[in-house]
């Protein structure tokens, strides 16, 4: 029996997208990596550090954030397993934001040298990596709109819709139900709201029977209703690509 390879889920995700040859697949499997675990809120990447690795999330959740000088935090995106949390650092020398582990997480740190040579030598892998970063960008654009132009109910509903669709792809969300990993404070920091406002908004989504949230499990009761409140259109996730 061969040992489970930690990069296998990545190979599967990428090869589906870019029609990898067996050689491409083997090249990804041959990447050197170090497994690391992080506790709740631990920093995986810090703004300002010179980057040496790219970090693939194997288990748990992570989020990108930036801190203002006055200490306020804005969360910029969430990441789920089989995604890189900092693929851009393969080319950008210094981290321009922080990445924190949401709860308990496990990652594979891949040194950027071998990762970039891999991209150099294998056009399909280069393309797969590139598309990852392009979809990240598309999500950032949508988040500018979300915090910029939607009201509080729409912001929260939009974020929930995004999580549902992304988690469905990994099988972590079934029948509109998933372990809801976010605290209200994190939810507030992702939507540019206060924690109190976030709490009130969640209550109103529950009252309108769009979602249920109990014992850390979120259930979408009315998907179409939630989408409508969230002004949600999944085009920006580019899930067909």
């Amino acid at each position, binding site marked *: 029996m061969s040992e489970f390879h930690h990069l296998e889920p990545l190979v599967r995700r990428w090869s589906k997208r870019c029609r990898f040859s067996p050689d491409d697949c083997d090249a990804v499997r041959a990447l050197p990596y170090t497994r690391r675990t992080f506790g709740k809120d631990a920093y995986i990447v810090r*703004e*300002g550090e010179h980057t040496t690795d790219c970090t693939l999330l194997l288990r748990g959740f992570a989020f*990108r954030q*930036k801190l*203002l*000088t*006055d200490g*306020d*935090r*804005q969360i*910029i995106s969430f990441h789920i397993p089989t995604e890189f949390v900092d693929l*851009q650092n393969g*080319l*950008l*020398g*210094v981290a*321009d*934001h922080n990445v924190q582990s949401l709860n308990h997480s496990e990652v594979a740190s891949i040194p950027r040298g071998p990762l970039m040579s891999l*991209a*150099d030598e294998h*056009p399909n892998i*280069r*393309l797969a990596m*590139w*598309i990852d*970063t*392009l*979809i*990240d*960008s*598309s999500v*950032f*654009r*949508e*988040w*500018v*709109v979300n*915090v*910029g*132009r*939607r009201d509080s109910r*729409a912001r929260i509903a939009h974020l929930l819709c995004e999580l549902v669709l992304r988690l469905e792809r990994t099988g972590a969300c079934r029948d509109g139900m998933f372990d809801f990993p976010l605290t209200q404070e994190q939810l507030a920091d992702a*939507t*540019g709201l206060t924690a109190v406002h976030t709490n009130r908004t969640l209550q109103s989504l529950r009252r309108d029977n769009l979602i249920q949230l109990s014992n850390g499990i979120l259930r979408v009761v009315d998907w179409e209703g939630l989408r409508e409140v969230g*002004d949600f*259109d999944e*085009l*920006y996730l*580019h899930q*067909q*690509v």
Partner: protein
Amino acid sequence: MRGYQVVEYPLKAFLQDLQEHSPLSSEDEKAFLALPMRLRHLDAGSYLVREGDIPTHCCILVDGYAFRQKVTGHGSRQILSVCIPGDAIDFQNMFLDISDHAVQLLTRSLVVDIPREALQELVLRRPAIGVAVIHSTLIEASILREWVVNVGRRDARARIAHILCEFAVRLEARGLASRGNFELPMTQEQLADATSLTPVHVNRVLKSLQAEGLINRQRRNIQFTDWRALQEVADFSRRYLHLPGEDDVAVAAM
């Protein structure tokens, strides 16, 4: 003089900018300049891409200004970034099948269209060009992250000041402005849509920045009168722009 060069070598400035981060061989450069392309002059307000478009061309802004935008289901517009001369407009559409936002011109502009397939083929065949182009899209992504922070967590004064700082520093890096003196090609309504404020609020903030001696405004001309203080109000650090030649380290003073 700039205008003459632009028409003669429309892609020179773009290539130069790419090479600030990722050096290209002369063969790479030649291959890039040999791409089939079409030059177009377009009026202010023209769309270069619309949300939902299935792209056939990718476009570079040679001269002029543009902005990326999305419109919510309720009809309010959010501007996502401002494109300046030498920017690729929609290189993300090279490998994404549908455009997820629109790009509209702020001023009369000169643009170059390159067929999508020719560009795809080039970046896959020539790794150095691929890396250079990816690098520039990664910096765009970094700017987007900063905009999430700007509209998400900064107050009105900081948002406006931040957008002014960013615009000035980006223009200066391309040699298009000197020391905080530039034309801002945006109306107050457009500034409002970029900062998620109302035009009235934008107007008030601009006036107060001027009253405090941070900027000078004459019509669209903006002059920074106290750069250090303006950066402080804006909570601005240029690290996220990943400008070349700074080893990516934030510079204390200009």
